[in-house]
Every structure is written in structure tokens, then in C-alpha cells.
């Protein structure tokens, strides 16, 4: 009897062991989606992630569609790797604060940060960012099928490199372009009236003169319609919108082609004065409270159909085309930036993935970045509201069909390489521009005086590394 029990128990144990082995193989087969097992050189994600199984990486970034998309996609990564991903989403300013406090105090709360790339130089010079070469050159971590230089838009180097070293990967590449009310622009009566008044056909503006003519034409406050809008609040949105005009008219903040180097200050050049005067002239055709608008207000006004044309960012376009949120969904057109003296110049921007030196799980964080940058994940993120840095994303038929895709991609071919610089003082320079332009728009300073003030401040901020090129009035 006792022998029988021993035999039954032995068989049961053997069967249980076999079952566990089978299920564990089967489980891996289920989790290991084709994209997780790159056949080249035997690298696959589950194997690469095995040493970090059970680890948790905490990520922080701005709470808007691209990060919300990551939040929706992370369970797939967690299933494939056993690495848990916690995401903290906040308003843009709050992210800057929280990241700043975490990195400066060396608390190490965040393993991965998604941060505007023009703050990169400051973080690098403070030794707050981990160089990524250690991971990129590690065959156990790096997916050999991913070649950043081949797969990403060239702008990735501006967004991820500083001082000859790589510190980040772009999470999204944004451009600004012209939004216009296609329904109004295509209206035969509007077209006829416009041609009669201005002597040329109404259409997406190709020059800044046309842009202003159209703004003037559609400014009808009694109908609750304005020609354009200015994101005039003293806010990061003002700085970034203004750069479109500055560079398109031939001006610059610093005359340099490399965003991580200083150059002679061009913010008070004659071209900059012209650009600023033009920018200010648009206030006449903007809603009365434009000096208190950020990009959020601009988007809300466009969604309500109150404005005929404006300059806006890729990542806001989804909300504009969402019929649940927008009265003008399906009625919008998208066009390249109007041409100025320096040609067509689009403002670019975006946020990058960075791994802080205080990260507790840098390798796991790196694996997550590369996983997010995979072609299939980039397409998925794009459809959920991203602005993919990966070229192949824009060959996907669903992405190609989005009405703004071609413009947002063409815009990348018409940017200035150093519109948004990554020198350590970038944020302070931006603040200075915000303040100067805000003062000018509010008639608190004449244009030249405001720009001279900004030039002197930038010179001081950079300890003279950015030299004054144009004479300034005393400040």
C-alpha cells in the first residue's frame, strides 16, 4: 500500500514538473510576440530583460497624448519582460519642477524622464544624465535591428546629443505649421470677396503678407470670428511661437548652426526687429485677450471655430480633429509655414527620453526606450496621438491618411538646426525672450528697446560666451 502511494506520488510529482515546464514554455511563447524576438544575432527582449525581471522603472513626463499612449502600451512591455513600468503624468511646468527637484536633490525617484530637449545641456553639465553609449554598445541590451541614424529623423541628434555624446532618444518630433479653416477658405463667396479685395485667390498663405491679408479678411468680431491668434501670454508658448517669425524673417537668437554651441547674438538684428514688428501687427486680427493666451487657449479657440488661421503644433492636431472635442473636425486644412526673407522656416520641438544618473534601474529603462522606438510601437503611439521620430512610421497607410501627416513631415525639411538650442542657459534664454516679447506686445517697450534688452540679458546669462553683434541702447 505504502509502495503504491510512493509510486502514485512520484508519478504525480513528475507530471506536475512536466506541466510546469510545459506551461512555462507555453507562457513565454504567448508573451513573446514576434516583435519581441528579433532573430538577428540571437537577441530577444525577454532574454535581454531577464536580469531585470521584477524591477520597477518610474517614468515622468507631460500629461498629453504621446505619454498617454505610452501609458496604454506599457502592459505589453511588462508582460514581455516582467519589468514593471510606473508612469507619472503632469502638466508641463510641473514636470520641469519635479524633474528639477529629483535630479538636483539626487533623490533618484525617476528612472526615466521625458523632458523638453532644450534643457539637455543644463542637465548634462550638472552630471544629471547618463550617457547612453554604455547601453547602445552593450550587445546584451541593444537591439541590433535598431540603428538610430538610419531609422530616426536626423533631428534626433539635436534632441539626444550634447558635447559629442549621446544622452537621449527623441520621444516625439514636433513641428509647427499653419492651421486654416478649409471650409471658410473653400467657400465660393468668401473666395470671390477675397479676390475682389486683395487681387489674388484665397488659399493657404504662402507668404507672410498673404497670412496677414487673410487674417485681416476674416477678422469679424461681430460674428465671433477672428483672422488669427497670437499665443501672447508670458509663457513658453510665446517664446516658441515667436521663433517661427524670427527665423523666417532672417533673424536668430544666436547665430549658430549647432544647438549646443554659443554664437553671436542676433535677437536684436534688423531682421529680428522686422519679424517682431510683423508679429505684433497680427494682434489687430487676434481675439482681444490674446496677450493672455497659451497654446491651450489657442487650441480651445480653434476647436470652437473662432479663428480662421494660426500656427500650431503637431501634437495639438489630434484634439482639433477629434469630433468629440472640436466643432471644426474635418473642416481644417494644414499648410507649410508662410515664406519669409529667409524662406520657409518651421519651428521644431519635442521631448526626449533621458536616463538620470540617479536612476536605480538604468538598464531596464534603456530596454523600455528601445522597445518604445520599435516600428510597430511607434505606429501604435502615432495613432494614439504621438509624433514619431521614426521615419518608417510615416509610411504606414493609416498614418499617411491623417490630413496633417504630409505637412508635419515636410516641415522637418525646412527647419533651422539651432532654433532651439541645448546650451545650459537655454531655459533662461527662453525666459528672457518671453519677457522681452511680452513687454513689446503689451506696448510696454518699443520693439528695438525690448530686443536690445533681451540681447544684453542673453549676453549676461552666458557670461559673454554669446557675444553682442548689434549695438544696443544702454540697459
Amino acid at each position, binding site marked *: 500500500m505504502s509502495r503504491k502511494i510512493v509510486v502514485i506520488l512520484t508519478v504525480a510529482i513528475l507530471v506536475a514538473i512536466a506541466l510546469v515546464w510545459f506551461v512555462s514554455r507555453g507562457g513565454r511563447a504567448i508573451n513573446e510576440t514576434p516583435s519581441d524576438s528579433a532573430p538577428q544575432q540571437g537577441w530577444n527582449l525577454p532574454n535581454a530583460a531577464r536580469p531585470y525581471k521584477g524591477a520597477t522603472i518610474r517614468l515622468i513626463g507631460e500629461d498629453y497624448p504621446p505619454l498617454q499612449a505610452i501609458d496604454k502600451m506599457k502592459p505589453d512591455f511588462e508582460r514581455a519582460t516582467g519589468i514593471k513600468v510606473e508612469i507619472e503624468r503632469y502638466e508641463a511646468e510641473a514636470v*520641469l*519642477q519635479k524633474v*528639477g527637484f529629483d535630479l*538636483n536633490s539626487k533623490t533618484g525617484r525617476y528612472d526615466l524622464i521625458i523632458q523638453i530637449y532644450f534643457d539637455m545641456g*543644463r542637465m548634462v*553639465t*550638472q552630471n544629471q544624465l547618463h550617457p547612453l553609449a554604455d547601453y547602445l554598445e552593450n550587445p546584451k541590451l541593444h537591439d541590433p535591428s535598431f540603428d538610430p541614424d538610419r531609422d530616426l529623423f536626423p533631428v534626433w541628434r539635436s534632441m539626444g546629443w550634447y558635447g559629442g555624446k549621446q544622452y537621449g532618444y527623441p520621444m516625439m518630433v514636433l513641428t509647427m505649421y499653419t492651421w486654416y479653416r478649409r471650409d471658410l477658405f473653400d467657400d465660393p463667396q468668401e473666395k470671390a470677396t477675397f479676390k475682389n479685395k486683395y487681387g489674388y485667390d484665397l488659399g493657404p498663405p504662402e507668404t507672410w503678407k498673404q497670412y496677414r491679408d487673410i487674417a485681416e479678411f476674416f477678422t469679424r*468680431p461681430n460674428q*465671433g470670428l477672428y483672422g488669427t491668434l497670437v499665443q*501672447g*501670454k*508670458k*509663457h513658453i508658448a510665446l517664446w516658441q511661437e515667436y521663433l517661427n517669425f524670427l527665423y523666417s524673417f532672417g533673424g536668430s537668437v544666436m547665430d549658430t548652426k549647432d544647438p549646443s554651441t554659443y554664437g553671436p547674438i542676433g535677437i536684436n538684428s534688423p531682421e529680428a526687429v522686422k519679424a517682431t514688428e510683423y508679429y505684433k501687427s497680427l494682434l489687430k486680427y487676434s*481675439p*482681444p*485677450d*490674446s*496677450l*493672455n493666451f497659451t497654446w491651450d*487657449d489657442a487650441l480651445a*479657440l480653434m476647436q*470652437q471655430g*473662432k479663428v480662421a488661421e494660426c500656427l500650431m503644433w503637431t501634437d495639438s492636431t489630434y484634439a482639433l480633429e477629434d469630433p468629440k472635442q472640436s466643432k471644426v473636425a474635418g473642416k481644417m486644412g494644414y499648410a507649410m509655414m508662410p515664406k519669409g526673407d529667409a524662406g520657409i522656416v518651421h519651428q521644431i520641438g519635442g521631448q526626449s527620453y533621458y536616463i538620470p544618473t540617479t536612476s536605480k534601474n538604468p538598464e531596464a529603462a534603456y530596454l523600455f526606450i528601445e522597445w518604445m522606438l520599435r516600428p510597430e510601437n511607434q505606429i501604435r503611439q502615432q495613432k494614439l496621438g504621438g509624433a514619431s521620430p521614426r521615419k518608417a512610421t510615416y509610411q504606414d497607410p493609416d498614418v499617411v491618411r491623417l490630413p496633417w501627416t504630409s505637412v508635419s513631415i515636410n516641415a522637418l525639411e525646412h527647419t533651422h538646426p539651432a532654433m532651439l538650442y541645448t546650451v*545650459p*542657459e537655454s*531655459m*533662461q534664454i527662453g*525666459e528672457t525672450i518671453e*519677457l522681452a516679447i*511680452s*513687454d*513689446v*506686445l*503689451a*506696448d*510696454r*517697450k518699443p520693439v528695438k528697446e525690448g530686443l536690445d534688452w533681451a540681447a544684453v540679458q542673453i549676453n549676461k546669462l552666458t557670461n559673454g560666451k554669446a557675444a553682442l553683434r548689434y549695438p544696443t541702447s544702454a540697459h
Partner: protein
Amino acid sequence: MLRHNYWKPTMLTPVLAFLALIFLGPFLYMVWLSLTDLSFASAEHNGNFIGLSNYVRALWGDGIFLASIGRSALFTVLCVLPQAVVGIALAEFLHSSPFSHKILSPLLAVPALLPSVIVGLYWRILLQGEFGLLSHYASKIGLPFATGILSNPRLVLLSVAMVDFWQWAPFVTLVLLAARSSQKRAPLEAAWLDGASQLRSFFDITLPGLLPAILAISVIRAIDSFKEFDKVFILTGGGPGTASEFSSVYIWRQAFRNWEFGYGAALCVLVYLFIYLVTQIGLKWSHLAESQ
């Protein structure tokens, strides 16, 4: 008796130590920071001792800071004066009308209970150009500047003061109402018997009696208004230009946008000293009023 006195300081020691740790510690650290060049924007400025350089820079080389102090002071006046005047009038009205007193008193506390951030957001929506509810209807009835109330540099301080009034005038009224209710009725009745009018007796008897409470609440509100941050940050961000950039917003900009912690700490100390000085003067007046 002696033994009893011996235990008093002993019992207080933990509380005093706790307070020192929580309040004095960070303050002393801030004072120390103000003597350094600590900046997280520049690798060269890693907390070296630079003596009083930050103070010299603030007082003799930073016109924007000094202007922001002046702006904060002006804003304080714009807040405190109307709130005190309306508070006195309302307190007198509610005191003389028990029915209104009963109905309105609980409501008066509501705005003060709301977080300033919420108040800021709420008013930003109401005053959002011609699309905000209030500004829209104000422009419909022809009020000038109604649609640019938060973006007109000449109006912006008044606009923010108006929002502050909405939040705090009811609270000032409550405090003064409490003081008014505690006043004895006999002197007033004596004055009336002597033929004094209501107005005369208010100015000669009621108001002097309220003076200590008026000064106390004015000092509290002045301190609060001088360091106003939340509402103005949400309503205007300190703009247009620097039109509504109070010292608190400017210090925030230096410390948390420009990461100049050393300089930001020096500005904080200067603002603290300024408020301390003004408060001492206010309290002196308050004591004088009380003694009279």
C-alpha cells in the same frame, strides 16, 4: 512652586526643538544659501561662498526685482484698502441686521475656504477675453477693456486685486463682524441719548473701537497680499511683460525656472526682511491704537 517652574521649560523643550527643526532649520539654510552662488543652471556655480554678492546684485543691480517689490507693495494697497473699507461697512450692516447676519455669515466663509489655485482657475475662465462668461457680458453692455481685462497692462493689477477682493473681503468682514459684535452697546446708547446721529456715533465710537481688529486683519492681509503667488501665476503668469510680476513670481522665476538657488534665497531673505519691517510698524500702530 520652584519645582513646578523647573518642569515648564523641560516640558516645552521637545516642542521648541520640533519648531526649530521645522521652521528655524530651513530658514537658516536659506540664509546660508543666499551667501552662495549655488545654481543648477551652471556647472561653475556649485555653491561657493560669495558673501553678500547676491544681496548687492539684488539691491543695486536688479531693477526688475526692485520694480517687482514696488508692484507687490502697490498690489497690497489695492487689496487691503478696499477689503478693509468694504469689510467695515458690511460688518456694520450685518451687525445692524440680525436676519442678514444669520443668512449671510456662513456664506462669507466660503471664498476664503477655496484654495487660491481654484480661485485663480475659476476667474481665469470667467475673464477669458470675450469667451469668458463675465468678460463676454461686460463687453456686451459696453464696459471698456472688458475683453482684455487680464491682458491690459494698465488694468491687470486691478483685475488681480479684484479677484483677491472676491476671495478675501468676506473673510475680513467676518473678522470685523466678530469684533463689532463684542463691542459694548452702552457707550453707543449714551451717545444717542446725547443726540449724536448714527453716522456720528459710528465714526466717534464704533470705528475707534474696531481699530485694533482693523489693524490686525489689515496686517495679516497685507502680508498675504504681498506674497501673492497662486492666483496671479494662473491668471496672468506675471504678464503682460512684467506688468503683474510680483516679487513672489520673480523669485519663483529665478529659483525654479532659472535654477539660481543662491540668488533666489537672497531675494527671499530680502522680502522676508521687508515684510518683517512693515509688520512691525503695523503692529506698533495696532498697539498704539489699543492703548488709546
